[in-house]
Each structure stands twice: as structure tokens, then as C-alpha cells.
């Protein structure tokens, strides 16, 4: 009897080995995923129902008070929130430009010329540098006093004169455009800066994709008389679908989580006009004038909900593709 039981037990183990093994391998990842991702999301959802300035009192008790959906009601009438939403949408759409532009550059770079590797790495370069550095460089680029935009403008519209006390100064017929301080243009200026590394990312994705385009299909297409746009549209692009999918996914997520550049280039200014949800959340909760952790969590929750729409779609697409592939 005794041996029988142990025998059946071990055989249960051995019979289900293949089903159990993946879960054992997943345990460490799941454990950390829960601690660092799932639990904070739940805490943030919970915190969004409280008014809290982030402080614990002398006895270690949180000073928060439960206010239900009040934070969300405030959000609804908060113009800063709507400006952030509007800017997030702008980011989403304009950031998408990096996909076709990246494709164009990738096709252009996909040739065998002497030194092409150098050109490829130069195009890839902006993706390697930190977003913070990109923001800093573009901040200087746009600077109305010493930036390159200003220098070009000054060449056309300004002249150097001597001011009242005899120092050199610049007088302009038309003032130099101050892109990052203009409520109308600042967001476009930051998105343009953000496109630089994002295009590079898409270039890399498409370059690897182009490596895998089947030469025989191109050949066959050529025999059938396809060339130029038709070749691109009917023969090359369908084979690049996996690359396009990844490029769109990372671009959408990149657009929604845009934070670094805004923090570096404008801090959401002028007067909050370049805020996006992620930066607004930082501003109300964590920044020097923050102290509204509950409200910040409500902003984070909204951003999370928006992201979930896209992420669920991408996951669903991937699942569908895999099923079809199987």
C-alpha cells in the first residue's frame, strides 16, 4: 500500500511535469511582478480615493482621509487635466510619424554602399543617448538667445548694435521665436525633439525586418512587373508586418509615457500648457509644489486606464497572430 501511494504520487508528478515546469520557472518573475507592479497599481487605485499630502504623523499613522470619488470629480473640472489629455492625444498622433519616417530611412539605408554601417550607426545614435540628454540638447537648440534657431533667425532679421553703455547687443526687426515658451508651439517643439530618438528606434526595427524580406518574392514581383510604390505596398510591406506592429506598439507606449523631455525642456510650462498626464501626475504629487498624492493617484489611474486600452489591444493582436501561426 505504502509504496503504491508513493508510486502514484511520483507518477502524478511525472505525468504532469510538463504542465508544472513552466509555472515553477515563472514563480520568481511573478513574485516580483506582483510586488513591484501589481500591488503598487492597486495601492495607487486605492490612494486615488483619499486626500493625502504624503505625510505620516508622529505615530506613523497616515494623515489621509477618505473622500470617495471626489478626486475624480475635481479632475473632471480641472483645466490642467484637459490640457494634459489634449497634449497626450497630440503626442499619440504626431509620435506616429516616426513609423513611416523610420520606414523611409530604413529603406534608404538598406543598401550596400561603402561605409553604410557608419551611416546606419549615425542614424541609430539618437536612440542610444538618454532622453534627458536629447531634451537638454533640443532645449539649447530652441533657446531664443544662443540656440541654433535663434542664430539662423538673427541672421535674417537682426543686427548687432552697441547698447546704451557700449556693450554689444542684438536688435531684431522681429523678435526671435521663443518656441518652448509659446503656449501654441511648445508641445510641438517637444514632440519634434522626441521624434528624433523614436525615428531611430523605428529605423532599427525596420532594418532588421528588411533583412528578412524574402529575396525570391521580390524577384517574383519584379518578373510580374511590380516596381516603386507598388512593390513597396504589395510585396515589401506585408512582409514587414511584424516590424510595423512592434514599431506602432512601442511608439504608442512611448508617446503615452513621455515624461523625461517635458520635465527637462519645459517642466510643463509655459503655465502648464505642455503638461501631459504623466508629468501632471508628477507635478501634483511629487514635485516641490505637489503634496496632493491622492489627486496624483487619480491622474495616474486615468493614464493607466488609457494605456490599458492600447495594451489590451496589442496583447489581443499578438494572441490572435500566435493562434493563426500555430
Amino acid at each position, binding site marked *: 500500500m505504502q509504496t503504491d501511494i508513493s508510486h502514484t504520487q511520483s507518477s502524478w508528478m511525472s505525468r504532469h511535469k510538463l504542465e508544472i515546469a513552466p509555472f515553477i520557472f515563472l514563480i520568481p518573475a511573478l513574485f516580483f511582478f506582483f510586488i513591484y507592479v501589481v500591488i503598487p497599481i492597486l495601492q495607487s487605485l486605492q490612494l486615488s480615493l483619499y486626500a493625502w499630502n*504624503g505625510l505620516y504623523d508622529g505615530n506613523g499613522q497616515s494623515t489621509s482621509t477618505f473622500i470617495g470619488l471626489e478626486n475624480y470629480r475635481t479632475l473632471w473640472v480641472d*483645466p490642467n487635466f484637459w490640457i494634459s489629455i489634449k497634449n497626450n492625444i497630440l503626442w499619440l498622433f504626431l509620435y506616429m510619424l516616426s513609423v513611416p519616417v523610420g520606414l523611409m530611412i530604413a529603406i534608404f539605408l538598406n543598401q550596400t554602399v561603402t561605409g553604410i554601417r557608419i551611416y546606419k550607426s549615425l542614424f541609430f545614435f539618437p536612440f542610444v543617448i538618454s532622453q534627458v540628454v536629447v531634451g537638454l540638447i533640443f532645449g539649447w537648440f530652441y533657446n531664443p538667445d544662443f540656440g541654433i534657431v535663434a542664430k539662423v533667425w538673427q541672421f535674417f532679421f537682426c543686427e548687432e548694435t552697441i547698447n*546704451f553703455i557700449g556693450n554689444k547687443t542684438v536688435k531684431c526687426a522681429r523678435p526671435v521665436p521663443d518656441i*518652448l*515658451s509659446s503656449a501654441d508651439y511648445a508641445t510641438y517643439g517637444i514632440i519634434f525633439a522626441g521624434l528624433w530618438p523614436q525615428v531611430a528606434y523605428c529605423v532599427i526595427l525596420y532594418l532588421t525586418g528588411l533583412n528578412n524580406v524574402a529575396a525570391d518574392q521580390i524577384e517574383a514581383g519584379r518578373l510580374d512587373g511590380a516596381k516603386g510604390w507598388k512593390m513597396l505596398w504589395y510585396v515589401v510591406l506585408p512582409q514587414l508586418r511584424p516590424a510595423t506592429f512592434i514599431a506602432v506598439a512601442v511608439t504608442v507606449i512611448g508617446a503615452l509615457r513621455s515624461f523625461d523631455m517635458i520635465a527637462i525642456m519645459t517642466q510643463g510650462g*509655459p503655465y502648464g500648457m505642455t503638461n501631459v498626464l504623466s508629468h501632471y501626475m508628477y507635478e501634483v504629487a511629487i514635485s516641490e509644489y505637489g503634496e496632493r498624492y491622492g489627486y496624483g493617484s487619480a491622474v495616474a489611474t486615468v493614464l493607466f486606464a488609457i494605456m490599458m486600452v492600447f495594451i489590451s489591444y496589442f496583447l489581443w493582436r499578438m494572441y490572435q497572430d500566435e493562434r493563426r501561426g500555430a
Partner: protein
Amino acid sequence: MTNTLKMKIGTFAATTMFAASAFAGDLVITFDDLNPDPKQAFEEAVAAFEAANPDINVTVNNGDREAHKSAIRNFLSANPPDVTSWYPGNRMGPFVDAGLFEPIDDLWAENNLNEDMAAVKPTMSRNGKTWGVPYSYYQWGVYYRKDIYDKLGLSEPKTWGELLSNCDALKGVGVTPFTIGTKYLWTAAGVFDYLNLRTNGYDVHNALTDGKIKYTDDRIRATFANWEEMLDRCSFIDNHASMDWQGGVAAFANGDAGMYVMGNFAVGAMRDAGLTNDQIDFFQFPEITPGLPMAEEAPADAFFIPSGAKNKEDAKKFLAFVAQADIQSKWNSAIGQLPPNSKATVGDDKFLQEGFAVVSSAAGLAQFYDRDAPAAMASEGMKGFQEFMLDPSKLDAILERLDQVQAEVYK
């Protein structure tokens, strides 16, 4: 981030060290200025304190100022030091309300600070108690290019009308009257505060930052009307929204702009930009409403005792020590600021002397818009000021928006 972390570790290590040792005389002080002069002045004061109290063993944690601002939110409840530096006014409000600071009214009474520091007492008080001891403060006012003024035969304006006509003269020779850099917003709040203090006075400033007056109130509208006149007839440099305050100094140093509404710390930057004492000078922001008592902006830095401090006895000794006139004189002449103790002597720098004359005759000392108003209000308010400076025609929308925020924040 690493700074914050280091500080947390430092604080933690210091507190555990204290727990391990048997001496009652261990004192942990957290300070927040790593700039060479302030750091040295602080260390000298601590050394003097140790010399005067050989039985007290002082441990110092000096960290970066910005890191301190976020670290204090954690260490006050998690690992409180015995003394920490922080700011008065509404900046200490959340900590006082959460019961994280120790009231020290007895210390003020025992050391005669109620008289010696009478001018700053209101800003150190909240909920009817006094919470800290200021070790330093500095004046705000108008810094101007004396060489340009002299060349044009202008004199320091005493009234609004004189200021405006000085502006006309400056503009006439192609000098922009005022420089500023509003990228980080608070500089605009300095201009607003002065216009409001001169238009309506100290009480209205306090009522506004306490949320008792609406932004659409006629008195505040009058302030903005004066501001619009200033924008129109005086004007500020172009592109100020892209510049920090140091960027504003550049135009001033080059002689493209003639005046700067600023705190006394700007003098250092002006000297670094190559200006000499003969080229720069200071005047009190001129009178707008005739006969109105003149209040000044004079933000203070202070020391507080966390309510969780382990050695409150010696912490009080240290606070009493830094409140002494001789210590404050030495400390503040080293860092180029003013001692809050009225018995202390002021450094012989001309800006300190002039500043001291201005603040000691002031009808009241305002901390600054972003220290007097709660954080959420200050943040929106300063955005509104910047927006107004860039486009005065949006005034109505801005004021209504600020009213809305005010209703949210102070409820």
C-alpha cells in the same frame, strides 16, 4: 536621487548610532546647504556650539537642498533627527498640522526671543504656537544698474510715478527697464507680491495667501491693473519664460536691462557676471498707494525640532545657541544675509546695510508667495502670474481659474 538616499542612510545611521550609545549628549542635526559659504558658516556655528557644550556630541547630516525637500517628508516620521533646517510660513504648515514638529514657545520666552525676533515671530507661528528659530533671512527689492541710472541722470524712485518715468527714460535709450527669468515661475511671484504689498498692504497679502480674499476681488484686480501698467510702460525682457533667474542676470549684466526685482542672493550672481559694486545698487520697491505702510518680502531659513527627536533637551540648547545675537552676526556676515535677531550686527556689505535698513523699518515681513500660500495654490497662482506676464489680455480667465483653485485648496 542618490543624494536623497545617502541622506536617508545618513540619518538612519546617525539615529541607530544614537540608540547604540549610552551618552545622553548625542545630538543629530540635519542641514540642507552644501554651497561653500553656507556650509562653512554652519559648520563653524556647530563647532562653536560644541566648544561651548563639550558634553554634547554633535552629528551633522548636511545634504543638498532639493533632496532635503523630499527627504524631510520621510525622515520626520521614520528617522527624525534632533534638529532639522526647514522654512517657516505655510511651508512648515503640513508638518505642524501632522504633529511632526515640536512647539518651542518656552524656548522663545526663556531667551527673550519674543522681543529680539519680534519681526519674524508671526511667520514662525501657527495654530497659536511657535515652531522654530530662524537663523537667517534676506531682503527683496529692486536691484538696478547704477551706471545706467547715473548716465541718464535718474535717481532712485520713491513713488510709482517716478518708477514709471524712469522706465520711460530707460526705454528712450533702448534699455529694457526690467529683466526677469520666469521659467521656474517663482520670480514672477516676487513681482506680484511687491505690487500687491504696495497696492494693498500686508494684511491683504496675508488674507489672500490665507484664502480669505478672492483673486477676482477688486483689490487684487487693482494690483493686476498696476502690473499691466508696469508691463506696458516699463516692460520686461523678451523670452523671460525660457530663462531661469540667472539667465535674467545676463541681460542685466550686459546693460540691456536696467532693473531686477530680486532677492539679495542675486548680488552674488551679478558680481560673478562681472559687475562691480559701483555698477549695481539697491532701492526699496517704490510706494504705489500713497501713505500705505511698506511691508517687505524677507524669506527666512530656520531650525526646527521634530516631535520624534530623541534628544529634545540638547536640541533646544542648540536652537537657543543659534538664536544668540553674536552667533547670528557671524553666521550671516559669512553668508551675506541678514540676522533675524535684532540685537545682532549686520555685515558691512552695502546691500546688507541697505537691506537691513529697509526690513527693520518694514510694516510687516512677508515670506514669499510660495511660502505664504499652500503649495497647490502657489503652484497654480505662479502659473497664472506667468501667463499674465505673457498675455495680459487673459486676466479675467486667469483670475476666475485661481478663484476655482482657491475654493478647492482652502476648503
